[in-house]
């Protein structure tokens, strides 16, 4: 006797038809019976239906579609206009869509750039270097023949530096700077006191004090930390897949000092924490409270987590500018409730 085993492909096709049919509306009793018979025919049918449903409703699928959205082509327009929430411009925009991205002309010396909450901006520099400005951030570009100086005044930015040993690329924070020759790295201001995080994805970056000498007392205090030789290379070197934390602390004498700590980061983890460049936030085992705080940087809508769920650990990839979508996905995933009042989304048990 020959029993015909259905191929995985034909099962997937049938599963796709059933999910589309279920999505259209309630099944007739006859269809219900057909579906049950089909599911009973092979355990793989059950799995294929579950998988097809999961893909169909996957938040990632939705996210990927949002990323692809462009102004509709003329031929599409006759089908009725789709609401154009985020109109994307520029070639690079085909990849980005979760955050609004606008390409602007190349900067001249001393220009200031700012990004809105939820906006990610690309700033090309004349030498081919690129700056990606994260949400709610401000920086000034001072671009000269012998130096490339960026003053990061607020927020975070990622720098892809075109190699040029004659023109050091320097990102200045309030209390420290990160200098590179040819590399890619992110600098984030963590508070208004001057704390800063430097993450290096390739090459080497020196984290050092900015050139104007601080007051004598502070300078003495700092000398101990930054290995004296008061030259241009008195900083801490951060190499690929490392991250440096700059903190402003007080030494034993009560004098303010700049402290820097270095740690290795797994390449995957670094890439994940830099997903904001594509308008995405990636979490791997962080608490819900931490994730909510991260979302707060990107939107005026704030997520408040009440009680025990704040300590739940979550993983996933989300659109940075869609905290409501994140809250929905989390509420479903953790089986907790979510309510929205104005700009506050509350997650609770």
């Amino acid at each position, binding site marked *: 006797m020959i029993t015909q085993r259905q191929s995985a492909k034909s099962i*997937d096709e049938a*599963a796709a038809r059933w999910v589309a049919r279920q999505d259209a509306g*309630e099944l007739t009793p006859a269809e219900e019976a057909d579906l049950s018979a089909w599911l009973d025919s092979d355990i793989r049918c059950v799995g294929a239906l*579950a*998988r097809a449903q999961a893909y169909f409703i996957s*938040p990632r*699928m939705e996210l990927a579609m949002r990323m692809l959205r462009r102004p509709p082509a003329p031929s599409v327009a006759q089908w009725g206009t789709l609401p154009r929430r985020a109109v994307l411009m520029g070639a690079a925009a085909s990849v980005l869509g979760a955050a609004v991205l606008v390409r602007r002309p190349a900067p001249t010396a001393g220009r200031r750039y700012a990004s809105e909450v939820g906006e990610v901006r690309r700033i090309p520099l004349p030498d081919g270097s690129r700056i990606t400005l994260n949400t709610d951030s401000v920086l000034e570009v001072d671009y000269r023949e012998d130096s490339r100086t960026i003053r990061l005044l607020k927020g975070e930015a990622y720098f892809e530096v075109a190699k040029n040993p004659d023109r050091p690329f320097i990102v200045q924070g309030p209390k420290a700077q990160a200098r590179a020759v040819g590399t890619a790295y992110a600098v984030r201001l963590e508070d208004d006191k001057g704390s800063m995080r430097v993450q290096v994805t390739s090459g080497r970056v020196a984290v050092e004090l900015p050139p104007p000498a601080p007051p004598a007392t502070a300078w003495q205090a700092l000398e101990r930390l930054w290995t004296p030789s008061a030259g241009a290379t008195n900083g801490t070197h951060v190499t690929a897949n490392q991250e440096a934390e700059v903190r402003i602390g007080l030494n034993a004498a009560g004098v303010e000092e700049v402290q820097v700590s270095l740690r290795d980061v797994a390449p*995957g983890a670094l890439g994940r924490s830099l997903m904001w460049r594509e308008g995405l936030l990636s979490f791997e085992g962080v608490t819900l409270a931490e994730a909510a705080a991260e979302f707060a940087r990107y939107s005026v809508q704030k997520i408040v987590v009440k009680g025990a769920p704040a300590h739940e650990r979550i993983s996933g*990839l989300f659109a940075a500018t869609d905290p409501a979508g994140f809250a929905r996905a989390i509420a479903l995933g953790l*089986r907790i409730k979510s309510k929205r009042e104005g700009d506050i989304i509350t997650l609770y048990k």
Partner: protein
Amino acid sequence: MLRCGATLKSTKQITIERAQWLALHVVPHEPALRAWLKRKGGLHCDVDDVVQETYAILATKASVDAILDPKTYTFQVAHSVILQQLRHARVVPITAVSDIGALEAVMDQPSPEDTVLARSELEHVRRAIEALPRKTRAAFVMRRVEGLSQQEIARRMNLSQHTIQKQVARGIKLLLAQLGREEADEDGVADQKKKTRSVERDHAAAKRKVH
């Protein structure tokens, strides 16, 4: 908005909650799972079959509340499916048995590639959607991004509801196929080897028949 599963009666059918749990906790790890299964190609298992059965077990499990680490759990389920298949196979290839040890060793630590794959998963999805036929993609986007019902989409596109349902089915079918195939492309070399091996096997079988 989503009706699938809401009115289902058979015990084997899948609740909307479970589909959502799968979407959130299992779908993101599917590329890593497929890559891992493919690396275990020596086990002579069909990756698609194992993936479908793994989903079936996860979909029909009474409760998923106790699963703290869905990724590891999914890999464990897939592992048990392979073992089950080996037990049922009439002739177990020698290599398959010795590979089980390797499989268990891998279980303990997901490889770095797994992490990388999970990260590029969104890019895979994006490419798969981009590759859809224009009309199918338009219907899909209106349904999933705009949240329009199939009926509403039919009205807007001036097509019958039946046509829209077919477009949605087509979209799901293509995405499922595309996302399964994506891994095969990446692992092309290993795939080629496997093909060569199976051709050799077929030759041997043909010879036996002749004699």
